[in-house]
């Protein structure tokens, strides 16, 4: 077989290995990312530091497994569990890191420690022997994420299976994972990326995102001599919403790849595509113990859209109105710790030549709308309606996508938490088009009294017989209506 067939098949092999997981990475012993599968944009910037951190503090031999959910150790949010293991093929060592997502709890905490249980990098298995006593201690913690033990069991088994499969494949077909073939793969990707970037014109663009609460994200995008730089100098501090610099980097890279329409397996070469500068002390370069959840839910979507807008301005191509998919998130908690997490998808922004999409999680890859029958089997609620929110997309030459409407009848007393996002910036139209309708939330009490909620986030008690009416935002339109 020719060397380029080997290179193609290495890429295919890595895709097959990673396909078992929603997001995962394989890194070689030189610390180079060979393949990365991502579910949300911050995954792109956080996996390499995660493996670097785990392997720095733990020797990581075959069969060892390290667990963490700490956003300041390469994690994303506390509801996402990160597993890191190592395996050998011939004389080479590889690292496999995998993410498992649990239902997040809505939180407007002042500190990370109040958002949930933080698990620093912790060895949970040696020689594939799980440390059940330690896992039980974590599981029994009152702030442990729901479904912790089941997720650890399921993912650790999947990890061991995939490692076995890689090793048995490589034993019979040793050349695919050879050092030379890895080098060829990285070089080929580099060549392909340079070809794409070479086509971008020089230019720069400045954009400010100002939040209702006063914070400003200032983005200066510059393309110069085949280099792409996202500079956040001038971005303010916040006392409320934060993103780690690794998540900021991942968001910029992911949005950049989305803009380019690139669909290839991400590897080390992709990381050389862009440069991101986040000043110290700004809200995009959070330090422990700043809380993370709200920032990750809101800022990544806004930032992703902002990167696309800036690139569209510089390249004069591929514009997109702002997405209405910024947080319209509800959590209904019931006695016994049961809670229903409901991100109500908004409409996406229109583009130069197409309408936006109705009710769609634009910046999350597993875009599955949950089944009504599944929801009602699990939680004491009845969904009275679920569908497209009519006339909510911004009108224009191309219309923004409509948001979604969901009405829920509560059958047991509980509490409702919500996050409505920053309604002043989330869904503006572009080039003379209208904005999408902002998100709306109300609770109609069993007595008939209607409580219209205007705070961007908060919590209230709900009783059996109350109805919750949530409407997510529409996407912004693009261009003047004819």
């Amino acid at each position, binding site marked *: 077989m020719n060397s380029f067939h080997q290179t193609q098949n290495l890429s295919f092999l890595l895709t097959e290995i990673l396909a078992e997981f929603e997001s995962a990475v394989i890194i070689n012993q030189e610390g180079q990312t060979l393949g990365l599968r991502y579910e949300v944009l911050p995954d792109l910037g956080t996996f390499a530091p995660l493996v670097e951190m785990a392997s720095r503090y733990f020797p990581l031999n075959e069969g060892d497994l390290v667990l963490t959910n700490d956003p300041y150790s390469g994690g994303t949010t506390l509801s996402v569990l990160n597993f890191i293991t190592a395996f050998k093929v011939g004389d080479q060592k590889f690292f496999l890191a995998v993410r498992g997502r649990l239902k997040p709890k809505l939180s407007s905490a002042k500190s990370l420690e109040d958002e949930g249980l933080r698990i620093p990098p912790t060895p949970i298995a040696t020689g594939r022997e799980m440390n059940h006593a330690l896992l039980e201690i974590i599981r029994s913690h009152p702030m442990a994420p729901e479904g912790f033990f089941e997720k650890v069991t399921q993912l650790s088994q999947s990890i061991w299976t995939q490692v076995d499969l890689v090793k048995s494949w490589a034993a019979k077909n040793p050349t695919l994972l050879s050092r030379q073939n890895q080098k060829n793969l990285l070089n080929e990707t580099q060549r392909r990326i340079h070809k794409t970037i070479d086509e971008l014109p020089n230019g720069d663009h400045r954009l400010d995102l100002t939040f209702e609460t006063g914070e400003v994200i200032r983005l200066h995008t510059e393309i110069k001599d085949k280099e792409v730089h996202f500079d956040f100098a001038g971005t303010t501090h916040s006392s409320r919403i934060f993103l780690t610099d690794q998540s900021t980097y991942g968001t910029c890279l992911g949005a950049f790849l989305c803009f380019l329409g690139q669909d290839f397996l991400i590897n080390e070469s992709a990381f050389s595509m862009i440069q991101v500068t986040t000043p110290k002390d700004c809200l995009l370069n959070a330090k422990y113990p700043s809380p993370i959840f709200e920032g990750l839910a809101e800022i990544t979507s806004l930032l992703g859209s902002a990167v696309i807008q800036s690139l569209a301005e510089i390249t004069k191509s591929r514009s997109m109105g702002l997405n209405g998919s910024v947080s319209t998130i509800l959590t209904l908690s019931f006695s016994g710790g049961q809670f229903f997490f409901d991100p109500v998808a908004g409409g996406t922004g229109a583009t130069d030549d197409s309408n936006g999409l109705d009710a769609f999680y634009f910046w999350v890859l597993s875009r599955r709308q949950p089944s009504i029958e599944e929801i009602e089997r699990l939680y004491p609620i009845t969904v009275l309606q679920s*569908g497209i929110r009519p006339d909510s997309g911004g009108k224009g030459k191309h219309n923004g996508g409509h948001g979604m409407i969901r009405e829920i009848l509560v059958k047991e007393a509980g509490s409702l938490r919500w996050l409505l996002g920053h309604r002043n910036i989330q869904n503006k139209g572009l080039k003379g088009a209208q904005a999408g309708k902002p998100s709306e939330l109300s609770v109609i009490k069993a007595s008939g009294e209607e409580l219209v909620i205007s705070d961007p986030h908060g919590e209230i008690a709900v009783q059996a017989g109350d109805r919750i009416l949530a409407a997510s935002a529409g996407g912004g339109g693009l261009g003047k209506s004819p």
Partner: protein
Amino acid sequence: MAGQKAKKVTQLKAFLQVGVSFSQISIFDEEQSKKNQNAEPVRFDLLYLPQEALSASLRKIWQEVGVPERLIVTSRFMEKILDAKLGGTVAQVVTAGFETWPILRQPVLPDYFDLKPHRQAPLASKDLVFGLSERVGADGKVLKALDMSELEFINSKLKLMGVKRVCVNLLFSQIYPEHQKRVADFFRQQDFEVFAFERHNESCDEMPAWRKNVINACLSGVFSEHAEEILRSFDGQPVDLQFLDHRGQLFFADKNQIAGSLFSWLEILKGDFENEADEILHLGLETWTLLSTRERSLHWESSWGRIEVDTPKMIRLKTQPTLEISPGAWGGLHLSTEELSYEPGPMCFGRAQKPMVIDVLNETFNLKLKPIQPQGIRRLQDQLTALAKNIPELSDHNFQSLSQALCQQIAQRIAMEAHFHQMHYKKSRKTVLTGHLAPELFPILKKIWASGELLLDPRSKDRLSLALKNHTERIL
């Protein structure tokens, strides 16, 4: 002898597999077959449907060997039209409040971040979805009773709009089927063709069930035409014509079985190997599939999303015989992700402009398929050589060595997919390789196979016919 009716021969049993572009007909003598389970058919034909019309071809065969007493059919023919925009006059009656829910549950493409994501177009028109204010809860209790007067209103609208087929899609109909049954009966009495299949007890997602009703309704007309086309070949002689459903049961008129019948071939293939192997790797002319003999799945992962069909667990491989071969972003000639089809056909059939995997396999193995044309092969060789000359990384522009290298790559992809998609993971699994292209690819696969034991089915080329005969003998 054109125009002359064929004689009926009662000891003949015929078995027909209809694919999207190929069809296999095998005829067995009942007496011989009883004596030997592995008996050879008295007649076996492989038809290339774009060139050989099914009805006329069958009629010719009956004239030569006689009309059989019974014809059992497993058909994937309806898949052919699934890519076309369907719907037309199919209406859906759904629980009120969820009229646009089927649209939001449509799969979104592409499966990576893209500026212009789009939903797969719905099978049936979104303007023909009607809400019915009834409601059943998750515990099966009626939260809102059915109002029959609403049905009268919908009925008059549907008649005004010229609708012929109605799908009844109500929440929790698997727990409390009474509402669905009453609505279905009402529309049947109004002379609509009604689609309201009985859901699986374990079903806990409404949408795969709703989609199944819609797909059955959309395929109903084509299915009837397909059955009529086969019947026409008998020139009015009475023949027991039966189709197989997804559980391998016989049916003829039940339109609720259409979607499931697309998978009947998996069930019969599984039946032939379940005592011998954990998995079956089927390398047919049209599709390449990995199939479990141990596990079942409640769903078909279709391009419209999940559809509730209980079948043996299977994976359609990414590597397919119809994948295009083109210069790749990585350099060299590569297997693209673009799937072509047998219409107009591979280059070696003399009918297309783009090379595909089956062309490369023919170049290496000389497949000796009836539609292969020498001028097609010459054009393919010229095109592969021309493509190769434009690729600086290639040192050898000889099309034979190019084809051989591509064959190795194809085999490696198949082996990798089979390896990493083990459906019943165990270290010592047994996989049987079957299908029309199995004997050719077996020697290469055997060398690189890393997933336990790989066995070649000695009857790979006509395994489906044999399995169909054996299955029918078991159930009748």
